[in-house]
């Protein structure tokens, strides 16, 4: 058994960390970028394009579409480093729902050239429109309809909580093309361009700045050339890639947890009460010990799961386990580290405050903890 990363992966990771620490963090400081303010688009674009140039942005995409062709282990390594640095722009530098996804590989040659290539270069962004007011993780219940009229598909419906919706140059939308079949060959995927849909209400969460947009389709005509893959099978194809997103979230959670633990340890050694540092108090030590232990567990789960993926093995259950454990874990860690900081930890000046809010959503996005447990239980009960 070998837990060492290979030389290229270590070098790639170290270059990423150096870039974040030397370029991105000072840029954040200079531009006053923080978790609760929008990243100016010009800066975001510059970071994306530089990331693409260095090979970070599309490292996970196949070489045939201009990506780096690297595996899931490398992805979790980079996501963990991004979290460890506490950098906002590091998240911009690694593609989220606004960037290239393995799901886009099902695009045909013309679609890859027109839509995917500029996103892989970091010049454009996209979005992923699946959720609806009446369909979240039970996505097969989507009400958005696509009907064939002559040469075009006509789309009607509303999507919501769409990340990057207002800024995207194009998006992938899922709509029912055959209500009798639904998820078994009745839901198709389409590429829609920015001027083909309207932005409705933008919801703002308890942290963050972008807002999650409502996207409205009213008799939108979409040419056949924008249909993704085979009619009726877009949904099934997309579902195959949702697990990767869960694992990436888990990896980011491990990194942020480590960042927060480091903050807590540093503060515990500095802060003196009753004549000695609070780090010498057992109550504080247990918080640190439990956090370090849980981070160790989560990190090894994430790395092992990524390794399974790279071996070509089915890791659907393990991805849910990683997402469940790591996001619940980082919630406990941020709570403890805020507590170690005492009153200061609750203040806006302290980094723990913003993370306490922003991390809460990780237990909800890409399938709630309850959905993950449901999927894990199903897998166990099916044995």
């Amino acid at each position, binding site marked *: 058994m070998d837990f060492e990363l290979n030389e*290229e992966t270590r*070098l*790639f990771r*170290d270059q990423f960390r*150096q870039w974040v620490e030397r*370029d991105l963090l000072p840029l954040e400081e200079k531009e006053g970028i923080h978790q609760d303010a929008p990243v100016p688009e010009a800066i975001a674009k510059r970071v994306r394009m530089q990331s693409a140039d*260095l*090979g970070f942005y599309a490292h996970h995409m196949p070489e045939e579409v201009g990506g780096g062709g690297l595996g899931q282990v490398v992805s979790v390594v980079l996501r963990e480093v991004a979290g460890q640095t506490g950098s906002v722009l590091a998240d911009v530098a690694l593609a989220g729902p606004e960037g290239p996804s393995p799901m886009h590989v099902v695009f045909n040659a013309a679609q890859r050239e027109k839509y995917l290539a500029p996103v892989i270069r970091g010049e454009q962004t996209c979005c992923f429109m699946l959720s609806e007011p009446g369909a979240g993780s039970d996505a097969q219940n989507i009400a958005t309809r696509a009907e064939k009229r002559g040469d075009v598909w006509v789309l009607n419906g509303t999507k919501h909580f769409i990340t990057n919706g207002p800024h995207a140059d194009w998006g992938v939308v899922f709509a029912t093309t055959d209500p009798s079949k639904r998820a078994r060959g009745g839901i198709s995927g389409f590429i829609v361009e920015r001027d083909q849909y309207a932005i409705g209400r933008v919801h703002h969460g308890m942290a963050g700045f972008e807002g999650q947009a409502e996207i409205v389709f009213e008799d939108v005509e979409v040419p056949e050339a924008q249909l993704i893959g085979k009619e009726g099978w877009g949904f099934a194809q997309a579902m195959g890639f949702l697990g990767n997103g869960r694992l990436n979230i888990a990896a980011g959670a491990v990194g942020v947890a480590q960042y927060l633990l480091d903050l807590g340890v540093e503060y515990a050694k500095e802060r003196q009460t009753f004549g000695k540092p609070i780090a010498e108090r057992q109550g504080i030590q247990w918080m640190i010990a439990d956090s370090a232990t849980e981070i160790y567990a989560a990190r090894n789960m994430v790395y092992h799961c990524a390794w399974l993926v790279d071996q070509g093995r089915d890791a659907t259950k393990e991805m849910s386990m990683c997402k469940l454990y790591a996001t619940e874990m980082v919630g406990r860690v941020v709570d403890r580290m805020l507590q170690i900081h005492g009153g200061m930890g609750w203040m806006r000046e302290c980094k723990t405050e913003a993370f306490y809010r922003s991390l809460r959503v990780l237990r909800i996005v890409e399938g709630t903890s309850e959905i993950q447990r449901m999927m894990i239980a199903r897998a166990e009960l099916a044995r």
Partner: protein
Amino acid sequence: MKILVPIKRVADPDNANKVKVSADGTQVTTEGLEWKMNPFDEWALEAALRLTEDGAAKSRVGEVVLVSVGPKEAVATVREGLAKGAERGVIVEGNDNDLDSNVIAAALAAVAKKESPDLIVMGKQTVDGDSNVAGTVLADKLGWPIINYAMRIETSDDGKTFAIKRDLDVGVASVKVTGPVVITVSDSILHPESVKNGVTPADFKYPEAEGGRYASLKGIMQAKKKPIAEQTLSGLGVDAKRTVTYKKFELPPARSGQTTFVESVEELVEKLRTEAKVL
């Protein structure tokens, strides 16, 4: 133009608190340390790459050969340099504790004689030993001129002659020198217009960067195929006996971390004199 760039792996200066001294105080223990390229060497490599490329067209027009004297694991540091654009690497194997500036300079001189570069560009010092002598001793062994603390380098005849500005405490010294020559660089060499090689358009500006360029994924993949030759000190005919030995290492006293505010300059001076006893 062919440039030899000596590089060394050093304990990560950002994690200096992890450096430990052995119980008997005779050596610094390396266990658990993270390693990275000596920052001064990163600057030298950046200067060498700028001298041997068309910066605007992003094409190579010369050759950079990296040489590292140290343990086998230093291959990772050489590979990093190759991933940033250097053409080849040479590793001269040696245990860090058996090396001093003289042994290293002798090894570098032996490699330089084999390679016959137009120029050697190196960091002015390494951040571990901080001796700041290897470059000068190397130049002495080769009988070449040494130009320390270069902040600007210009050449327009493929490296036969150089106009160099030196970054000194008292100001900037301008010199002209005919190669081959040993140059050590200061951090000002990372200025966007610090290097002019007659190939890159004269108005081209490099991006601001704290440590020089990063290795891209493409560079990392290409570096896997670039050759790294392995040499030994005895194979190069180098007398590997160190002449400088360290008597004892000790860590600096831990800082109390306490801050005392004073009301006036007079009070500060008084405290520095009577309490801190530094005046």
